[in-house]
């Protein structure tokens, strides 16, 4: 059994064990730590690992079905490992901060989401990628419905909305994947193996316009999962309502699956699609909706959880911008931003969760002056908030600046194309994100606390995983070359190279 | 039967049938139904089914209708107790009824012997009596009546029921018994709850 398989299955086994009666917290935290260590180990091994022709290291496959060919294949390249690292980091923080009075289902759900996400990121078979993602979605719905914040009626309706949206998105995605599999299965037999599909795509590429059509279907499918405008309206209420660990894991990790899928499946198989003018412009239009419309919507929010939830939707626009630019720098920036955003939003949701459990309200107008009472909390929040603003020195900035720079690579030109105009408009979103984040920060931490509405710092051990997340933001922000060195795999480079043909 | 009488009884049956459906007052409906059954019984008799016609009147127009009226009075259902039916239901009803009628009419007209009249298929009583006597399966009273040119309808009915369908008849009896018991059980008041 390969290490990757163990990493994927361990959280699922843990979930099963907890369900069967194993001590919830111990098992859950233990497994998370174990996974964290294993993924870190893989990261260090990765440089020396033998990389196959397809760019994956640590590959192994178990055949499940001969025809159509489905196999439980795992493998990791730089991008996958970064996503895996993101998953285990956030999962660790998420399960650690679940307080003891919560029922075991919190741990079960978290482990299922983590395991599903890991599976989706590390599998090399389209069938399993899809299946693992669906596996991770189900506990999300359940937890929103059963243990969401707010009254039960609201939880139910939000859970339904999320379920319907993501279900519909997954259906479109399924159609798109089916199309891909049908188009690219060579040799008269259907195959779900990503490597085989890519080999077929490389030898007999489709005409660009057809690529764009398939890409559009995949984009809508994956885009709904990533809350791409205008398929986003599930995301904000879902995150605002979901219990803290689920909000952390979904917004931080699972949501990135859509982007990862585009990077992993859509772009390598359909490398020219994004450079087809109508598709690129459609995507630019949609992502501007994310950045500008949702940016304004975020400014209008009055509660911290709403602000965070909407900001998470908004920042997806920048990652899509990286994909839309399609150049190597921009794509790597997109990967970087996926990681950075995952960490920062998970950190912020964890802190918001603590705020809620300590004070009982997230209404910005009722909060205030916490900076004086809880300095450590304030610093952690500042890390998250300033990271999502895009302050240099924290990870998000590195991703954003690479995306922006990568969109300006028609060198020597003195003309703006639609891509560059989009960047100019999207840059205004950076100002807007500063507006709402600083507004929230000012309301929560500055000024003086209202009577009874203040909190104290948690103990060192309680905030340890959050410090870990903040440290990850800082380290990656100051030394982005550490992560960039990992993407030596040619996924990203391959996409831009293939598109150049 | 002369055509005139047929039309009279058919109209009686259908007209009062319509009354049943249309009447706002349940009592009117019940009485109309009785009248409709009388017309129907006449049609039975016109088909030489004297026994069936008789019990149609006895059982239906007599017993069952009385039961209906009794219940209506017991429950004291007033005319205005019923809300007006919804337009959809009325339209649906008319639609289904008319289409069904047309379909039935079309099907019936296309049957091979539907153009036969009673005269076309006249009863051959003597020949039948002779044959029965020859086979020895029948009772003397029946063959005597047949030989006399009369249709011993009730006797033939009895013969059929008690010989050919004797077992079924007993099952029906059992059914009635069960029905009786069931009615008793159903009508029993539930345990009195102290007011």
């Amino acid at each position, binding site marked *: 059994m390969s290490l990757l398989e163990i990493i994927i299955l361990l959280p699922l086994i843990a979930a099963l064990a907890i369900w069967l009666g194993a001590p919830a917290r111990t098992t859950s935290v233990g497994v998370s730590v174990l996974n964290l260590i294993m993924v870190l180990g893989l990261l260090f091994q990765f440089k020396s690992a033998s990389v196959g022709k397809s760019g994956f290291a640590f590959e192994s496959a178990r055949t499940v079905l001969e025809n159509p060919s489905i196999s439980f294949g795992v493998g990791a390249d730089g991008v996958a490992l970064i996503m895996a690292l993101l998953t285990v980091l956030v999962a660790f923080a998420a399960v650690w901060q679940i307080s003891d009075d919560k029922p075991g289902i919190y741990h079960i759900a978290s482990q299922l989401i983590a395991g599903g996400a890991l599976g989706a990121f590390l599998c090399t078979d389209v069938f399993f990628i899809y299946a693992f993602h669906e596996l991770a979605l189900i506990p999300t719905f359940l937890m929103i419905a059963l243990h969401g914040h707010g009254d039960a009626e609201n939880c139910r309706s939000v859970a339904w909305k999320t379920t319907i949206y993501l279900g519909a998105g997954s259906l479109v995605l399924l159609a798109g994947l089916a199309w891909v599999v049908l188009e690219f299965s060579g040799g008269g037999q259907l195959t779900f193996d990503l490597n085989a599909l890519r080999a077929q795509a490389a030898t007999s590429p489709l005409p660009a316009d057809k690529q764009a059509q398939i890409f559009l279907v995949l984009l809508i499918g994956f885009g709904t999962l990533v809350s791409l405008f205008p398929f986003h309206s599930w995301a904000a209420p879902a995150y605002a309502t979901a219990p803290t660990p689920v909000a952390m894991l979904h917004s931080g990790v699972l949501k990135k699956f859509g982007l990862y899928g585009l990077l992993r499946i859509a772009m390598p198989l359909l490398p020219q699609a994004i450079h087809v003018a109508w598709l690129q412009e459609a995507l630019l239009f949609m992502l501007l909706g994310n950045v500008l419309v949702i940016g304004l919507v975020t400014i209008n929010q009055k509660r911290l959880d709403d602000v965070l939830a909407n900001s998470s939707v908004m920042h997806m626009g920048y990652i899509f911008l990286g994909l839309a630019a399609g150049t190597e720098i921009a794509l790597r920036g997109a990967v970087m931003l996926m990681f950075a955003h995952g960490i920062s939003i998970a950190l912020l949701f964890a802190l918001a969760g603590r705020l809620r459990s300590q004070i009982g309200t997230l209404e910005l107008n009722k909060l205030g002056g916490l900076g004086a009472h809880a300095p450590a909390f304030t610093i952690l929040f500042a890390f998250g908030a300033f990271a999502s603003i895009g302050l240099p020195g924290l990870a998000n900035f590195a991703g954003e600046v690479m995306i922006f720079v990568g969109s300006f690579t028609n060198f020597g030109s003195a003309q703006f194309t639609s891509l560059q105009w989009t960047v100019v408009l999207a840059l205004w979103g950076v100002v807007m994100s500063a507006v709402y984040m600083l507004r929230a920060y000012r309301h929560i931490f500055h000024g003086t606390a209202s009577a009874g509405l203040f909190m104290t710092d948690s103990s060192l051990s309680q905030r340890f995983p959050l410090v870990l997340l903040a440290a990850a933001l800082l380290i990656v922000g100051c030394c982005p070359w550490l992560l960039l060195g990992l993407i030596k795999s040619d996924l990203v480079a391959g996409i831009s190279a293939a598109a150049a043909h | 039967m002369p055509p005139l009488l047929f039309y009279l009884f058919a109209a009686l049956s259908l007209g009062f049938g319509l009354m049943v459906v249309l009447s706002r007052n349940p009592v009117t409906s019940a009485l109309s139904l009785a009248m409709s059954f009388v017309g129907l019984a006449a049609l039975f008799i016109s088909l030489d089914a004297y026994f069936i016609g008789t019990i149609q009147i006895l059982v239906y127009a007599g017993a069952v209708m009385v039961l209906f009226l009794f219940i209506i009075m017991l429950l004291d259902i007033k005319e205005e107790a019923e809300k007006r039916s919804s337009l959809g239901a009325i339209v649906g009803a008319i639609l289904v009824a008319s289409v069904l009628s047309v379909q039935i009419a079309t099907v*019936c007209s296309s049957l091979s012997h539907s153009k036969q009249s009673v005269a076309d298929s006249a009863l051959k009583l003597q020949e039948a009596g002779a044959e029965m006597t020859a086979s020895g399966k029948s009772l003397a009273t029946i063959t005597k009546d047949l030989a006399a040119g009369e249709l011993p309808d009730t006797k033939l009915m009895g013969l059929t029921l008690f010989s050919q369908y004797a077992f079924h008849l007993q099952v029906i009896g059992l059914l009635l018994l069960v029905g009786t018991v069931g009615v008793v059980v159903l009508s029993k008041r539930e345990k009195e709850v102290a007011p």
Partner: protein
Amino acid sequence: MITLNHYLIVSGILFALGFAGVIARRNIIIIYMCLEMMLSAANLTLVAFSRFNLVDGLPDYTAQALVFFTITVAAAEVAVGLAIIVALFRSKQSVDVEAVTKLQG
């Protein structure tokens, strides 16, 4: 001349009338009456066929036996049905079918 067709059409119309009543009326007792009407219409068809399908020159008494059974069963059914209506009325204080929606799937 009165042919078999006449009888069958009368029977069909009576049946359709009854059916229309079942659909359109809301008073459960009247619906019951309409049901009886439909049964009787079926009886008419049976008797008509028994008269026009002669067996050895006599009407087909098998059909008439069936009519007999039908009438018997209908009588039993009316008794039980009305008992049910009474029981229903006790709990709902109404004979309106709208009040009875327990069949909801």
